[in-house]
């Protein structure tokens, strides 16, 4: 289907769309109270995906049969009084580099085109145990590190806010599916910004948790800096998903409204000024700081020297670990990697052990500096990306080794601090812009609380892309 036909297609909407854009929290509440069945919700989302995804290209595998089976079982269990919590019966999307038992997991690579894992990744198992249903496996840049192309196993997802642009990656399918109402929430992975950047680019919320908080086993990626993170349409939904993902039993959604008075937001202004940032992104960031100030928070300029070098170091260490993971496969199946992916996964072969260790040590130094900064403020704030589109990111810096568009996100992969992107506006071209907030290690509750307060003071999260004929007015707030 040609993108131009999407907005004019005849569709059945209204009631169905109300269900399509339910937040995870609201869907869970309605399922619990019995006004919505898991099967009805799954059916509506599958119908929507079949209608819209030929253009959006966010989904690699739509797990209709197993999702209906899971929904039916959830409905029966809840009907018998065995409700297991706010995720029970709620369908989710999973990035296709995260293992799902009995469900094809391709990483969008011909290398894994037919791989069906025997076991779930621990984070998927945890969500299933909480009652969630795996609805779909979502598109991504090949092996979460490559420049996407039309020749990929699955060509790149389009940005639902502007179908002439592809979405930023690598968790592009997760962000597109959530923003487009194909699932209430999804999982992505983030090694340098791959949850936060697509979330910002698609107008949804994305969280990279503290290193080690969430078991990233079974998620293909470099172990030092890859985190599995939630992508959702609200901060509360991210908190609910994080609760289900976490083995600690921490209830992240319960404390969202308890923001302590005197919250201090640290802005590494000098480090931001050193980077070339799109004018509209800079304006959106400054406006977001004004909103935080209006909420009674104190905005404090701070120093975090070495952020740009930490971004470089993240990509050096990522390159080394990626090659270590792919070496055997590259030697035997090089031609099954895409033209870009084979280079990205190979380049770490040319690094020395000393390069790798130095990169990790730079991370140690900057981690201490971020910790020091966060002993004087509660949260750091920066832009998420430097440019508005995936294409601009590619043109501005073909290679990400100097941080490129990831200069604000990648440092916190190496330091391990939790960081999220929350929508903070739109460009003149109606492309979403995100605000990055960074918290103390293990400080997800506080971080989510600040983001929730900001979100509730704005209406960006209530905007949906104009994909349906009945909502063709841009930015029509559908609640």
């Amino acid at each position, binding site marked *: 289907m040609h993108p131009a036909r999407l907005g004019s297609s005849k569709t059945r909407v209204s009631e169905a769309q109300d269900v399509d854009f339910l937040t995870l929290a609201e869907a869970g509440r309605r399922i619990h109270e019995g006004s919505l069945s898991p099967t009805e919700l799954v059916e509506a989302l599958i119908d929507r995906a079949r209608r819209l995804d030929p253009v959006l290209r966010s989904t690699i595998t739509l797990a209709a049969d197993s999702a209906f089976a899971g929904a039916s079982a959830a409905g029966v269990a809840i009907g018998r009084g065995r409700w297991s919590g706010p995720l029970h019966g709620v369908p989710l999307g999973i990035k296709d580099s995260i293992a799902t038992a009995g469900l094809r997991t391709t990483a969008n690579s011909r290398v894994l085109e037919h791989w069906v894992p025997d076991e779930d990744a621990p984070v998927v198992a945890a969500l299933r145990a909480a009652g969630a249903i795996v609805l779909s496996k979502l598109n991504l840049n090949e092996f979460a590190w490559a420049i996407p192309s039309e020749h990929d196993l699955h060509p790149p997802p389009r940005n639902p806010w502007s179908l002439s642009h592809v979405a930023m990656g690598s968790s592009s399918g997760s962000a597109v599916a959530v923003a487009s109402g194909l699932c209430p929430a999804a999982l992505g992975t983030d090694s340098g910004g791959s949850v936060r950047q697509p979330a910002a680019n698609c107008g949804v919320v994305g969280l990279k948790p503290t290193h080690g908080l969430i078991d990233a086993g079974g998620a293909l990626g470099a172990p030092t800096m890859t985190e599995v993170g939630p992508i959702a349409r609200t901060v509360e939904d991210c908190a609910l998903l994080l609760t289900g993902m976490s083995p600690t039993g921490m209830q992240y959604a319960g404390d969202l409204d308890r923001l302590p008075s005197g919250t201090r937001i640290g802005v590494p202004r*000098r*480090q931001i000024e*050193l980077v070339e940032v799109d004018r509209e992104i800079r304006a959106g960031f400054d406006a977001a700081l004004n909103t935080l100030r209006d909420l009674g928070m104190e905005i404090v300029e701070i120093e975090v*020297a*070495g*952020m*740009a*070098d*930490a971004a*470089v*170091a993240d*990509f*050096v260490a990522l*390159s080394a670990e990626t090659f270590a993971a792919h070496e055997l496969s*590259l*030697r035997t199946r*090089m*031609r099954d990697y895409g*033209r870009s992916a*084979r*280079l*990205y996964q*190979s*380049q*770490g*072969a*040319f*690094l*020395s052990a*000393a*390069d790798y*260790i*130095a*990169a990790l*040590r*730079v991370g*140690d*130094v*900057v981690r201490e500096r971020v910790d020091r900064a966060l002993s004087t403020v509660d949260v750091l704030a920066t832009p998420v990306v430097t440019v508005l589109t995936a294409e601009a990111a590619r043109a501005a810096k073909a*290679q990400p*080794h*100097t941080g490129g568009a990831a200069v604000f996100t990648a440092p916190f992969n190496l330091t391990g601090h939790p960081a999220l992107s929350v929508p903070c506006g739109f460009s003149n071209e109606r492309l979403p812009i995100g605000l990055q907030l960074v918290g103390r290690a293990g400080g997800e509750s506080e971080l989510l609380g600040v983001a929730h307060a900001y979100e509730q003071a704005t209406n960006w999260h209530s905007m949906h892309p104009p994909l349906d004929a009945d909502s063709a007015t841009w930015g029509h707030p559908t609640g």
Partner: protein
Amino acid sequence: MAQALELPLEDEDLERLAPMVDDLTGEARRLRRYAPGAIGQLEDPGE
């Protein structure tokens, strides 16, 4: 160097890979000068 590593890359791949590797290794070596604990370390990580 790719041949020395016995990576089955074709000439076209090597041509595209070379500038990526130059960039990556150049940045990695710059960081090595700053690595804390390195003998002869001169400077802190930059801005």
